[in-house]
């Protein structure tokens, strides 16, 4: 009577076994077997998976290298923007805190001859710029306005040997004349040999001569020695400003008001 069902016995047994497995999924032994089989399969298939994935990994690697290059460029741009932002913020703070009326200008040209002596700014008499107005940065004095055009002006830098600035040592209020010696340094002349000057002393404008307002920082003393005549000191000053790295400058356009 059961003969017609005989061929189905293996199938029914398989179903019962499968159902037994399904309903014992929480069993730790079943899970251990499952984990063992899973581990074996993973170990066996690992080299094949790795090999087959190689082209995709290659493409992905190529794409990631490209992205890395792009990101590096972006990061460099971001860093540059950050530095510029910081510099502009410092300039803005300086402008707001300054006791002078300042007009900001960008450097649009430098003199083509060897030895940096002048710059051209993108501000002119339309911006109330006049000859002999002092040009500064947050770091210190840069020079003076030498010539003014409608929308530009030429700035004579302190590195020009033809310019002289009335200066004063902050340590002892000793006055003198600051001028360029043709190199990157400045020289502070007119200080008697009896005056005590040391390295690191600060030099500011004295305000004499009615060109530069007083107390604009010029630089620091880096070398002091007795001049050849024996009466005066030969003082070398490192300027506060690197004239080759100037981008934005301020012109003191209303110094009379505060002087």
């Amino acid at each position, binding site marked *: 009577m059961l003969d017609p069902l005989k*061929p189905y016995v*293996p*199938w029914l047994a*398989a*179903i019962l*076994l*499968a*159902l*037994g*497995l*399904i309903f014992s*999924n929480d069993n730790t032994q*079943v899970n251990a077997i*499952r984990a063992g*089989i*899973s581990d074996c*399969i*993973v170990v*066996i*298939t690992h080299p*094949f*998976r790795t*090999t*087959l*994935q190689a082209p*995709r990994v290659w493409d992905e690697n190529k794409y990631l290298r490209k992205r890395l290059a792009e990101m590096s460029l972006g990061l460099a741009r971001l860093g540059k923007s950050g530095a510029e932002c910081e510099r502009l913020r410092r300039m803005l703070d300086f402008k707001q805190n300054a006791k002078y009326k300042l007009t900001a200008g960008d450097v649009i040209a430098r003199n083509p001859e060897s030895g940096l002596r002048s710059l051209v700014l993108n501000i002119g008499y339309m911006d109330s710029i006049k000859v002999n107005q002092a040009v500064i940065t947050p770091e210190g004095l840069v020079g003076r306005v030498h010539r003014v055009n409608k929308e530009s002006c030429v700035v004579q830098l302190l590195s020009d040997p033809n310019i002289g600035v009335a200066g004063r040592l902050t340590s002892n209020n000793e006055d003198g004349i600051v001028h360029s010696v043709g190199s990157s340094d400045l020289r502070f002349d007119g200080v008697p040999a009896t005056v005590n000057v040391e390295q690191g002393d600060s030099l500011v404008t004295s305000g004499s001569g009615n060109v530069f307002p007083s107390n604009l920082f010029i630089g620091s003393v880096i070398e002091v020695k007795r001049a050849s005549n024996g009466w005066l000191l030969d003082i070398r000053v490192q300027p506060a400003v690197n004239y080759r790295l100037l981008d934005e400058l301020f012109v003191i356009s209303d110094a009379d008001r505060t002087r």
Partner: protein
Amino acid sequence: MQIVPGETLKYAIWGVAVLIAQIALSPLLEIRGIHPDLLLIYVIVITFKKGKYAGLIIGFIAGFAQDSLSLEFLGVMSLSKSTVAFWAGKWLENREKVVNLSGWFVLLLITAFGQDFISSLFILQGSHIGVFEYVLRNVVPTAVYTTVIGSLWFIAPFGNVRGTAKSQTRLKRFKR
């Protein structure tokens, strides 16, 4: 069902190779999240060549291996694979093992659909996804994809081995 050790080893090696292919090739064969079930094709081929009981056993083992690697209940794929293999074997017995491409296509489609439908009844337990929706989105595309890949095996040169549907069809034509 006769068990020949050499032949069993051969099919076991083939089984491991298909399992490796199923795992390793899946990402390459994926189309919108749908993978062909290469193991099912293997099980149906075994069923065709060696009969329903061999298919039942191989289907059970293949399903067990598949379940071990998935998050599903252990035994679900064993149940579905062994069931469809057994009934495919029964159907082939009645057809006297003469199957052409369209017959092979229908066989694969029905078994692939049946397998995934059976497993979905367990998989969807406690899920908010409806069976109809799941069948429409997963079962049918997987069945179609598996059928297409399985049909390639039927027409491929390496499918032309003794005992396969293709060679037997040719054999019958020759006898005529």
